[in-house]
């Protein structure tokens, strides 16, 4: 059990005033003044509609906002007069907050929320991202209900997203976690999720918070800890997730927080994932994940160029990571014209598995291994875009399923290179 000594005295005082709760909502923020008001209102509505008799608290863990976000959260909490609403709480709905640092850090924010949940003995908890503008009161219920009423320990979200959103998830994280751990969780890197006090406490005690590695990519680390711990997991549909525009420079930090965390977890969890074969679906509450097909402007030429630059310039790095046959195949596809260029599923899976094995053996600096994956991922994204350019929702789903099966089929190859000394 975590002793909570890293929490401030003021925050501990607020927690003591709240007392034990049934439901806890964690809200990590940093300069979210534009969206936070409506999100807190939605959370309140969700709790009052579905859990009016439960003791509940909203906890704002702020990473040093300078736009008055914490004040807005408190203001919404005070503003109880909602003449248009017919919602009334039978118990006090507390809203408290703390500034955990002067700079945002997802790991520290989650640790604060988990420690608070443990101290308040919360039965069901959720974390909501302050950027999830399209959140509905039903989404709150969809995340809380499976934990509070059905005994699940982790509720992973599913969304309605554009077919070209979350490509790292669809092309690497989802298929690889599914193939290795045998469980089909669509969104393993969770920004909104529900969890039981049990799994929260276990993660709080187990995770290595003392160094930056333990705090990095905590969203995925939490999912992997729940899978490895054999906890009951389900998925819940939360509606549409907005398209987020990102810059090319965002890819490497994202790879560190996701692929780096996954590769690192594989090392310690070898005994758990190595005997697994095949995969099983997890119970899904609400609709199945859905895709939007609106046209989207994508700079494909640039993706292709960055792949080519990577393959040619990083030859010496790839020689340490990839097998000669994989490297030869990469050069072969790189030589193809833009129309013919394809990064086939089999080659992509072999590439990812060889990267995972190289990471385990630390053939070069581990962070360099993760960085070297970025240009190759862009090549795979290019292929995914071309293959699904005119594809329907079904076509996209079938392509993702085919990739997942390829990951499952080639799992023995990973085990082989994982154990080999070369």
């Amino acid at each position, binding site marked *: 059990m975590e002793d909570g000594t890293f929490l401030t005295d003021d925050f501990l005082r607020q927690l003591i005033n709240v007392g034990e709760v049934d439901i806890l909502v964690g809200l990590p923020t940093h300069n979210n003044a534009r969206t936070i008001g409506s999100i807190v209102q939605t959370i309140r509505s969700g709790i009052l509609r579905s859990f009016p008799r439960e003791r509940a608290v909203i906890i704002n863990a702020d990473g040093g906002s300078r736009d008055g976000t914490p004040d807005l959260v408190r203001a919404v909490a005070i503003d109880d007069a909602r003449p248009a609403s017919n919602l009334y709480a039978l118990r006090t709905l507390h809203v408290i907050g703390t500034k955990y640092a002067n700079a945002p850090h997802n790991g520290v924010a989650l640790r604060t929320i988990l420690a608070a949940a443990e101290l308040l003995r919360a039965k069901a908890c959720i974390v909501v991202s302050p950027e999830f503008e399209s959140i509905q009161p039903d989404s709150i219920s969809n995340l809380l209900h499976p934990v509070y009423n059905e005994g699940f320990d982790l509720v992973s979200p599913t969304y309605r997203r554009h077919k070209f959103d*979350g490509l790292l998830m669809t092309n690497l994280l989802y298929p690889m976690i599914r193939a290795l751990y045998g469980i089909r969780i669509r969104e393993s890197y969770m920004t909104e999720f529900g969890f039981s006090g049990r799994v929260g406490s276990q993660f709080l005690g187990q995770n290595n918070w003392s160094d930056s590695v333990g705090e990095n990519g905590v969203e995925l680390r939490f999912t992997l800890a729940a899978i490895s711990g054999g906890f009951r997991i389900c998925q819940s549909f939360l509606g549409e997730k907005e398209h987020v525009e990102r810059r*090319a420079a965002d890819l490497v930090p994202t790879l560190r927080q996701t692929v780096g965390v996954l590769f690192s977890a594989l090392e310690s969890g070898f005994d758990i994932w190595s005997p697994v074969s095949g995969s099983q679906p997890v119970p899904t509450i609400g609709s199945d994940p859905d895709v939007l097909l609106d046209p989207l402007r994508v700079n494909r030429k640039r993706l292709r160029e960055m792949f080519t630059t990577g393959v040619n310039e990083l030859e010496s790095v790839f020689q340490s990571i990839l097998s000669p046959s994989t490297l030869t195949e990469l050069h072969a596809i790189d030589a193809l014209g833009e129309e013919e260029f394809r990064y086939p599923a089999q080659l992509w899976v072999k590439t990812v598995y060889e990267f995972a094995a190289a990471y385990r053996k630390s053939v070069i600096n581990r962070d360099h291994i993760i960085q070297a994956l970025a240009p190759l991922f862009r090549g795979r994204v290019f292929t995914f875009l071309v293959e699904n350019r005119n594809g329907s929702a079904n076509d996209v789903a079938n392509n993702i399923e085919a990739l997942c099966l390829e990951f499952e089929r080639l799992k023995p190859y990973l085990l082989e290179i994982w154990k080999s000394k070369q």
Partner: protein
Amino acid sequence: MREMIISELTQAMHDLARGFAHYLPRLIVMLILAFVGWLIAYVVKVILRSILRLINFDRLSENAGASQLLHKVALPSATEMLSRFVFWVTWLGFILLGVSVLGILGLQEQIASFFLFVPRLFVAVFILFFGLLAAGFFSRAALLAAVNASVPSPRLLSLAVRSIIIVFVLSIVFEELGLAQQTMLVAFGIAFGALMLGLAIAFGIGGREIAKRFLEQKFVREDKEQDEDELSPL
């Protein structure tokens, strides 16, 4: 006359025999020291080789770029090279210790200075190895960062980083060994200054467009075409 010659020869033979008898035990001691030294050096070499193999020193050396250098000049692996180096230094140390037992005038000072030089030699080898390791690490980091940021000529950038670090390391190594300190200082100053001046001129004049693009990418966010990413990865 004849007796005198015989007497002198006998005297000379006696002196030689006395001298030989005087030096023989020392010579034997020297040979014993050389033999024992060889045995110890050999054992040290075998132990060191095992330890280096155990810690995968060859991979470390590969990362440092030292293995590639050795391979190019047809030398054995870094583990083998270091083991042999330690063997020879140890054995040479024992041989010189044996030679000093002979008490040859003038040689004592040279031997003492060799023993003073050995620790500096080890420090120099240590600096050289870790310097090469740092050069390999930082040049690869520069290469990856440049490729992922679409900076033109990433390999040239990486090579520049490696060269600067190696020049810097070599200057420290020579200083540690006490070899041509003044020459090295002047040469390093000239080489480093010339490199920096060259880079400044190349970047300022030859790479005006690149510099412009780089600065625009860095500080101007309006260029949508360059700024937008493919898509959200998560």
